[in-house]
């Protein structure tokens, strides 16, 4: 028995040439119940299809029960994994019993006759979903709630190890939402059924799923509801301010959308949970970072540990730095996935640079799409913004003198045919600070910031009479 039932191993996929997500890793152990969250159109349903083998990853592998999905015949997949699609239609007047019987398709012999074991599985599926009273009814004449239960019964008749559900509560009223999720929870707890379901309703997800995965062109967060449902993270991923807390008298997290006319949600209903980072307003960023592709990862963690609020951007959604910045940055400037930095986004960066007290350039790959960021950084440096260049592999002095060998390392990550390197040369002429690792960058930054503060203090005291 394989304990890791479903594994996404470095999966890259896109419907067009532009990838929808890159190098995604996700593992479901046998018996887990996982909720998949995230905005529309960011790849949740696609992930389910990849898990079901109806789409093939462009790179990487999906493993089901120890088998590579590509090598597993469809029939073998269907014996291990069942899917409850979001909506379920048939032009034929099948009865509920006939439709649930279709769930036995992967188990039938060539002649397709039902054996006693098939009939037993169908009977169980009908009983557990409480659809046996509907068995003789025509499926198309049922209500949405009943249809969803029949779809689930059909999937259960497959007797799968894993059940994938696409928005199982999307078309249901509150009563059916609760009974559907209660049923899934019971199947998970009592029969050990492994469940992966996409969910839009964060409150229901928080209540029923012990593990949540927040997905936005890649996994942004993966863990318990408390770890994943953080207001800053959700506000940024869903692009609306939300507040997370525990409703008075409840035992699970609740997520509240903003009230009309308020930028930040009111505190009237929520007892904000201890340790939750739900205390607006955000600290004002002192330093702006340029990063991407993981180049700013260590620095962001270091700054967060040091308690220095920072902003970062522009980063493409789905970038690994973006996923981390969603949690750590005081402000994050996002660009659509796999697109060049748009003029509007560049304007946001420029505005941010006017407000911060320093900037740090991480060793990100320079392409035509993000070259504009270097221009902005150079411009800001010319106007006197203290600048730190983080460049591993350069030799630097303790006080951050000009790193020798910087030109060579810049050239190695310049994909603009020399334009990027030229901008760096101009930047170097302004004598920025150069750090060879993140720790040094933070030391240089704090030194600069305190020097600025002291100077500011001095000038303001001089101004006083």
């Amino acid at each position, binding site marked *: 028995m394989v304990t890791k039932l479903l594994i996404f191993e470095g999966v890259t996929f896109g419907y067009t040439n532009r990838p929808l997500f890159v190098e995604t890793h996700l593992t479901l152990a046998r018996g887990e119940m996982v909720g998949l969250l995230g905005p529309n159109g960011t790849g949740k349903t696609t992930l389910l299809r990849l898990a*079901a*083998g*109806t789409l093939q990853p462009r790179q990487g592998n999906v493993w089901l029960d120890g088998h590579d999905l590509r090598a597993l*015949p*469809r*029939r*073998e*997949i*269907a*014996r291990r994994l*069942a*899917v409850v*699609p979001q909506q*379920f*239609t*048939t*032009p*034929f*007047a*099948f*009865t*509920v*019993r*006939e439709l649930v019987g*279709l*769930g036995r*398709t*992967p188990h*039938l012999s*060539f002649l*397709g006759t039902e054996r006693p074991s098939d*009939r037993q599985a169908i*009977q169980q599926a*009908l*009983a*557990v979903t*409480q659809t*046996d*009273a509907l*068995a*003789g*009814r*025509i499926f*198309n004449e049922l209500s949405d709630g009943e249809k969803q239960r029949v779809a689930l019964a059909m999937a259960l008749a*497959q007797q799968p190890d894993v059940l994938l559900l696409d928005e199982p509560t999307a078309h249901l009223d509150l009563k059916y939402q*609760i*009974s559907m999720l*209660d*049923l899934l*929870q*019971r199947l998970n707890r*009592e029969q050990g059924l492994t469940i992966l379901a996409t969910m839009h309703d964060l409150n229901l997800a928080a*209540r029923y799923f012990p593990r949540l995965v927040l997905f936005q062109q890649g996994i942004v967060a993966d863990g318990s509801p408390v770890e994943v449902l953080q207001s800053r993270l959700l506000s940024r991923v869903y692009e609306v301010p939300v507040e997370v807390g525990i409703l008075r*008298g*409840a*035992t*699970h997290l609740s997520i509240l959308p903003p009230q009309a006319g308020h930028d930040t949600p009111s505190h009237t209903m929520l007892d904000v949970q201890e340790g939750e980072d739900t205390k607006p307003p955000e600290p004002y960023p002192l330093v702006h970072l340029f990063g991407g592709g993981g180049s700013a990862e260590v620095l962001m963690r270091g700054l967060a540990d040091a308690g220095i609020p920072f902003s970062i951007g522009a980063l493409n959604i789905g970038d690994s730095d973006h996923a981390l910045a969603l949690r750590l940055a005081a402000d994050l400037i996002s660009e659509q996935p796999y697109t060049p930095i748009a003029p509007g986004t560049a304007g946001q960066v420029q505005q941010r640079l006017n407000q911060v007290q320093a900037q740090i350039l991480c060793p990100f790959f320079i392409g035509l799409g993000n070259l504009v960021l270097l221009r902005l950084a150079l411009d800001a440096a010319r106007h006197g913004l203290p600048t730190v260049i983080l460049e591993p592999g350069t030799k630097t002095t303790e006080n951050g003198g000009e790193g020798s060998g910087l030109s060579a390392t810049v050239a190695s990550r310049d994909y603009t045919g020399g334009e990027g390197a030229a901008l760096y040369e101009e930047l170097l002429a302004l004598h920025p600070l150069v750090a060879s690792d993140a720790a040094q960058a933070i030391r240089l930054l704090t030194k600069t910031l305190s020097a600025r503060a002291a100077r500011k203090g001095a000038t303001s005291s001089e101004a006083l009479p």
Partner: protein
Amino acid sequence: MRTTQPRSSLSEQASQAPPPSTSPEAGRPETPLGKRPGLKRWRRAVVVLPLLLVGLCVAMLFATALGSVHIGASEILKLLLNRTGLFHFRQTWDQTDEIIILQLRLPRVAGAALVGAALAVAGVLFQGLLRNPLADPFLIGTSAGAGLGITVAFLLPTSVLFLGFGQIAAFAFLGALAAVALVYWLARVGRRTSVISLLLAGVVVTALMSAIQTLVVDLNADLQLRFRSVFAWQSGGIAVDSWNQVGIVAVVVVLGLAAAMGLASTLNALALGEEGAAYLGVHVERQKALLIAGASLLTAAAVAIAGLVGFVGLVVPHALRLLLGPGHRLLLPASALGGALFLVAADLLARVIIAPAQLPLGVLTALAGGPFFLYLLRRSGQDYRW
């Protein structure tokens, strides 16, 4: 305080629920048997399938008996039983009657039965594959392909026999298959064939081939004189003149029917759409190719000995679906029997209504099938469900 729902009640109810197979009515008086089509369908099948078989035998016997010379049904039975070698009834009939029956009428009746079975089953296959109530065997190019093939056959100066079939029958068969192959190839993008592309390509190829056929006829003065023959082919009619032809068509049809039965559970799964079928373990693209191949072979075999006979593939499956439900394990054999019965009866009528002249079979099936189809659509004022 996690929830106010008594969660344990679900499992209690589930475990206490009576197995409906033993006592389907227990505790549910609000769902009388009449409103439980699932049970009714299988009970009906037990009646309907044997009834269709008996009906087919009777119809074939009548079709053999009636004609220019009337030969009694009992005589035909005796004659046939004698041929088995097991029975030895005294011969009370003319030797010429025996020749008429064995060499002329029976091949024709058997041919009609085969054509009807083939077209009805092809209709079921296409309707199931395309999930479209209007799909008929000629939808994806077969008719136009056969038409063009026939026209080309008329143009050729040769007169070749293929396995005992005339040039025209052979070209109709090949034209139908070629058209479907073209449609399938056109609709195939990458390694997938979408149903919509298949329908569109079918429409385009049909239009294109009809245009070419018209053009060919238009440019050829000689052909215009013989256009009635082309037209007769296209309006359908059983044209068999030897057991050899019936035998070959029978082999194709029986293979096609067997393949169709093997695809029954695939068709059921496809009712949920291609993605839904894939989730149920169906290798959709492969099965789709098999379905198209099987249905087209059945259609082409029918076209080879009967021309274009419409409505069989539409009316018979629909009528039986209303009786037996959409489950293909019942629907396919029932449609084969029903289609055979329908066409034997239609061919009989085509021969006797204006005897000694004959009506075109395709015209008769349309005249009989059209109103029946309308009746099915509008019956008891309820929304049509199929």
